[in-house]
């Protein structure tokens, strides 16, 4: 597959780079250069914004940073043009990474806020460039900078540079999409918190994607500076760049590496056709109208819809995979004595503003047991799961898991130590197929499997949970019962040592609960250690070896399920004090 694609890229590269040697009018070469230019900008934008869903309106800033780097180095420092391009990439990438290092730490800065922030950064950068000696107002002329003789003519030099960069960018975007990195970015797009808990290093991935995206835009800026040979702040940092780039990607389809290229070529050609026919204004209106129609009726973009239609035609046949060869989810590590607790929490506290959700919880989970975590609503059960899985950091206390303290670890590192969890309200990745949903933890969990292995693993767990027939569906097509089981399959696919189940039974019918109980028994029979939060007391009594009762963030009882449920403190916590 990859060899074929590489051959395709090479053929396209060789074929297209032969064009200037047939001596076409310079005008065609310039037009095609512009197409390549917009392909680079749109595809590079898509690496962060399309894949991970962080819509940036600041692509113009990084493009501009590259433009001014080349312009400054070439005119003021006398650096040869080609040597300024790596510098342009570096400046833009460092700028992007520095911005990302601050912004990506703030979990609420997503969606529109991220878009606005990046737009504001563009204007700030523009103001600084305009008022400092970098530009100072009049703009920079590059007409005296010598252009290396790459092609037969100056216009073919730009054509070849643009072509090389466009192919590089497309190849980068393609490789990312098919790699672990890309899968992580798509998971971030759908639900960043869940991705992190399943083991995706979200912060690092976003930063890397941003850096790459900015660096490529920087090179495009460097070449463009030379192409237009007169760089001004007004033109460089105008809102046209981010708007066009967003428009092209959305138009082509932002969930596929090739989508933005289709959009870029379409929009560039369309605008050119209208301009050439003296209808430039109508062209812009047409682009606006097309954007609206595409968003409303082709939400996946032109290319995305096309790919989707092709995929639907090729209905994949699910290979029959039995559950016989299932690996133990928790293959216990040798060398640890059985009596030792697997997980030990000491003095765990967590407060949300005034609410003390956990007030010094001490508890231990023994190897191989099923521990029930019960307590009235608001007693801190879910918070405990969220703290152990790393979604929240505890205010104080320690969580020892196989000897290492989890309290200071990031959620994705906790996932890699072998802890998996489910969510009470299922949180599948909405745009990934059921199979891909389950493959994500296999790729990012303890074993960090390659994609093909991860998918094989995922199919096994789908068979185990009875979802094999739904492997190619989107999670939206599943009912609640199936979505709950998807959560379970996703947690199991990372082969955890410890499985945290948050109310798997809530909302299920009696028959479905029986199903689920059978499944959990089977998971346990393979030797898993399970902690589960539950309100369905029947399931608690049937399944657990021990229970721990929480009330107001404290452990008020622990021990044999039936005995504990009869303790007066527990009865009081659930039903209140009898009036005597």
């Amino acid at each position, binding site marked *: 597959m990859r060899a074929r694609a590489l051959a395709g890229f090479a053929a396209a590269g060789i074929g297209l780079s032969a064009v200037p040697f047939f001596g076409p009018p310079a005008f065609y070469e310039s037009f095609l250069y512009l197409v390549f230019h917009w392909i680079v900008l749109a595809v590079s934008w898509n690496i962060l914004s399309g894949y991970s869903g962080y819509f940036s309106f600041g692509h113009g800033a990084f493009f501009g940073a590259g433009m001014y780097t080349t312009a400054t180095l070439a005119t003021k420092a006398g650096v040869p043009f080609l040597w300024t391009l790596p510098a342009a990439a570096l400046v833009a990438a460092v700028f992007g990474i520095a911005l990302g290092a601050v912004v990506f730490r703030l979990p609420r800065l997503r969606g529109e806020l991220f878009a606005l922030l990046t737009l504001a950064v563009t204007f700030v950068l523009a103001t600084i460039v305009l008022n400092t000696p970098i530009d100072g*107002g009049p703009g920079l002329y590059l007409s005296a900078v010598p252009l290396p003789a790459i092609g037969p003519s100056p216009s073919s030099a730009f054509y070849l540079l643009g072509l090389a960069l466009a192919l590089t960018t497309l190849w980068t975007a393609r490789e990312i999409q098919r790699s672990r990195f890309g899968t992580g970015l798509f998971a971030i797009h759908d639900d960043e918190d869940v991705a992190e808990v399943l083991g995706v290093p979200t912060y690092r991935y976003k930063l890397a994607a941003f850096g790459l995206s900015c660096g490529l835009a920087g090179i495009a800026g460097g070449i463009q500076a030379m192409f237009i040979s007169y760089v001004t702040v007004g033109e460089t940092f105008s809102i046209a760049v981010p708007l066009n780039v967003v428009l092209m990607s959305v138009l082509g389809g932002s969930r596929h590496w090739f989508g933005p290229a289709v959009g870029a070529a379409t929009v560039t050609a369309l605008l050119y056709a209208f301009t050439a026919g003296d209808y430039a204004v109508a062209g812009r209106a047409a*682009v*606006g109208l*097309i954007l*609206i129609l595409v968003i409303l009726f082709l939400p996946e973009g032109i290319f995305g819809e096309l790919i989707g239609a092709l995929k639907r035609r090729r209905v994949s046949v699910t290979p029959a995979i039995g559950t016989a060869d299932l690996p133990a989810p928790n293959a216990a590590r040798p060398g640890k004595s059985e009596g030792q607790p697997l997980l030990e929490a000491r003095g765990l506290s967590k407060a949300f503003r005034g609410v003390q959700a956990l007030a010094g919880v001490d508890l231990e989970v023994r190897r191989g047991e099923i521990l029930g975590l019960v307590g009235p609503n608001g007693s801190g059960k879910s918070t405990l799961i969220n703290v152990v899985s790393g979604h929240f950091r505890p205010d104080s206390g320690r969580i020892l898991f196989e000897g290492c303290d989890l309290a200071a670890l990031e959620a994705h590192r906790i996932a890699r130590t072998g802890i998996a969890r489910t969510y009470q309200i299922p949180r599948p990745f909405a745009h990934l197929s059921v199979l891909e949903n389950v493959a994500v933890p296999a790729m990012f969990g303890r074993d960090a499997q390659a994609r093909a292995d991860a998918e094989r693993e995922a199919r096994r767990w789908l068979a185990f949970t009875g979802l094999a027939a739904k492997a190619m569906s989107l999670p939206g097509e599943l009912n609640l019962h199936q979505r709950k089981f998807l959560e379970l399959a996703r947690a199991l696919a990372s082969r955890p040592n410890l499985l945290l189940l948050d109310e798997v039974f809530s909302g299920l019918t009696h028959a479905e609960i029986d199903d689920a109980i059978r499944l959990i028994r089977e998971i346990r029979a393979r030797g898993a250690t399970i902690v589960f939060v539950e309100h369905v007391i029947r399931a608690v009594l049937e399944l657990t070896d021990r229970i721990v009762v929480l009330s107001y963030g404290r452990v008020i009882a622990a021990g044999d399920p039936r005995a504990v449920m009869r303790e007066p403190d527990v009865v009081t916590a659930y039903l209140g004090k009898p009036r005597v």
Partner: protein
Amino acid sequence: MALPSLTLLGQSLLSGLFIGALYGLLGLGLSLSWGMLRQINLAHFALAFLGAYLTYQLAGAGINPLATLAVIVPCFFALGALMHWLLARFSVSALVTFGLTAIIEALIQWIWTADFRRMESGYSDVKFRVGALYVALPELLTLAMALALSLAVWAWLRHTYTGKAMRAIAEDAPIAAAFGVDVHGLSLLLSGLCAAFAGVAGLSLALSYTLAPGQIYAWLGVVFAAVMLGGLGNPLGPLVAGIVIGVSEALTMAFTAPAWAPLVSFSLLIVVLLARPGRI
């Protein structure tokens, strides 16, 4: 760095106040539709410019600019409601409203060309002298309209039943609907109002500024900064924040070069986003 004279300082404070009022007027509709209907309407700016050009056209026909409001406000109200009615069928992203912006911009350029247009009216040259300072009538009108509209919306949301229902929709539309609030009708009403406010802001633009279609985007950043600083959906927020931004810009211009002014608003916006993203 030479310190500016007191008169210059006073004059720049005053101009900051007035331009801030325009930021507030432009931001009012944006903030309400964002805060209450969760719709980021980029087309708001294009509508304001459409209003400005219509005012220019009608004033050219000899109509008093203020009287044009009698035509523009109801038309824009209907236009805003219609747009909402059409788009409410889809879950509309800000990108759709960007598409609308591009269409309206092209429409403006097609009718009035890309040339600069300046409205001639009896108001533009009227100035009052207060001590050593000058106050231009169009700017005073802008401040008065911004104050009046912001206060009226504030009172409406606070003291009437429809206003309270509107706030309930902003909190949680499905729950409001469950308690008998006509979510669809009120959303139409609010969208209409927001568009009408864009029309009023257009009058202000036409009174004080030279118009060109490309200028639509020039206001985007500053007004967004005012809206977000002021708190989404808060009817007094854009005006107060707009004046804060306008005055700080004016001071920046007085003490340094005018070209540094954008730094103030966008840095403020960035600081707000970084420091208090939860508020938005």
